[in-house]
């Protein structure tokens, strides 16, 4: 496999919180166009691993490469701009904004973002605004969400869709999704699944944290298993499901 096929790579990544090794020496790589799952019991360091990839805090040790570029010291917003999208476990919609404004907030409007020059760019701004609004309306239509509903008044599942829709507004090559399927009904699950499958068709990559392995085994091929901050196994999802000791060790069933 050539280097260009790797979208993301971590080398010996470690992070401790007051002595507790939340992520311990994790080396991993992710190939373009695939969907990966990160599985493991609660407290295995899966979310911390994501936060390191996003740059929400610096690792104690190790390096992160995104598209062959060392991003270990890059700020979290610059990493997002490079094309890493994130869905939070606690969703984090902009609750006092309308659904459509939630999406528009993720666009980078190069005229309308600068308060010094806005008055001189009203025409250009209007054109770009309309383009963005159309794009947002299309995404929300796919999700069957009323664009003018305030995010706080949407259901849990709809909020998740809005949060996903936000990521789709900006250019993303890699999505880090923290439990995208948890707590939502089958219809929405299928909607999100189809979305992710579509997303990877153009060579984009998805990494998701999920507990319901049997549901994701339909469309996710590869799994990283985390236990106690360590990456214990990496392999094909059906092999891992078949390996009795892994299943026992992880889920105790």
């Amino acid at each position, binding site marked *: 496999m050539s280097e260009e096929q790797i979208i993301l790579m971590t080398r010996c990544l470690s992070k401790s919180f007051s002595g507790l090794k939340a992520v311990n020496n994790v080396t991993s790589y992710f190939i373009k166009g695939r969907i990966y799952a990160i599985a493991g019991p609660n407290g295995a360091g899966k979310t911390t691993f994501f936060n390191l990839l996003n740059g929400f805090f610096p690792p104690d040790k190790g390096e992160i490469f995104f598209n062959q570029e060392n991003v270990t010291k890059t700020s979290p917003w610059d990493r997002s701009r490079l094309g890493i999208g994130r869905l939070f476990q606690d969703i*984090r919609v902009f609750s006092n904004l309308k659904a459509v404004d939630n999406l528009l907030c993720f666009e980078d409007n190069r005229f309308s973002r600068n308060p010094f020059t806005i008055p001189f760019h009203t025409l250009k701004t209007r054109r770009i605004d309309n383009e963005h609004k159309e794009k947002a309306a299309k995404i929300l239509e796919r999700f069957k969400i009323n664009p003018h509903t305030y995010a706080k008044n949407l259901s849990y599942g709809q909020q998740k869709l809005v949060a996903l829709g936000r990521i789709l507004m900006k250019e993303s090559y890699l999505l880090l999704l923290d439990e995208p399927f948890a707590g939502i009904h089958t219809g929405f699950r299928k909607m999100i699944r189809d979305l992710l499958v579509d997303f990877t068709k153009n060579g984009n990559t998805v990494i998701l944290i999920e507990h319901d392995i049997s549901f994701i085994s339909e469309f996710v091929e590869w799994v990283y298993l985390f236990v106690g901050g360590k990456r214990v196994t990496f392999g094909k999802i059906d092999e891992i499901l078949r390996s009795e000791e892994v299943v026992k060790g992880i889920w105790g069933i």
Partner: protein
Amino acid sequence: MNYLLSILIMINIYLILALSLNLFMGYTGLISLTHAAFFGIGAYTTALLMMQLKLNFFLSMLLGMILTFFIAYLIGKLSLVFKEELFVLVTLGFQMIVFSILYNWTKLTRGPYGVIGIPKPSLGGFEFSELWSFFILSGGIAAIMFIYFKILDKSAFCLYLKGIRDNELAFISSGKSPAYYKALAFVISGGAAGIAGALYAPYITYIVPASFNLDMSIFILCIVMIGGAGNLRGPLIGTLFMVIAPEALKFLGLPDAAAANMRQIIYGLLLVLLMRYRPQGLLGEYKFE
């Protein structure tokens, strides 16, 4: 008539102050107590440039605004590292620093004696010395500022600020730096307060540091809190209320000594009641928590 005009001019000046503080406070959800300092820097710079260098009012105002931008940038850069309550305390600190510079740099500002005899603005031989002409000048500038803030209100810039207010971590994952937009809002907000100061100095013709102390910061904060933040209606109604209410109280026939105290008590009570029953203010959009 003159009495009415003088109230209208004060409404124009306070409207600019309220709108500018609202840009920062209402959209980012952070409370700043440095606003009177920026008001003062604008007023002093304009007054001193007009008197010492004999510059035209409009040029002085522009330079005053630019200086306020610059100082707001420095203060914003240093204080926006802190969050919420700590940020309020740090802005309080800067308010006191600016006040004590105005008070103690006697060579430049004449300290507590203030700057006296500030000339009226003039443009191409026309002097805005009559109240009605100054009303047109201040009203025109206030209207321009109102339109500017209206454009901002609809812009992506303000949408980003609202996003940061609601959820900073989520905003980061959009690929934009919250610190950058907060600092930008702080700078614009400060510069606009500088414009209000530039109007205030030649109107009053006499400025002292005490006009730009913490009390003034709190007064502007009250306008935004009582009127409401996060849109333009809030600061507008807040300004009308806070400027007109004390004038209306004069007609109650209270003795002069009691009137001033009554005003403070009424403001205080009103603020307490509003925060309890209507935390978003009269017409505001955002609830401070």
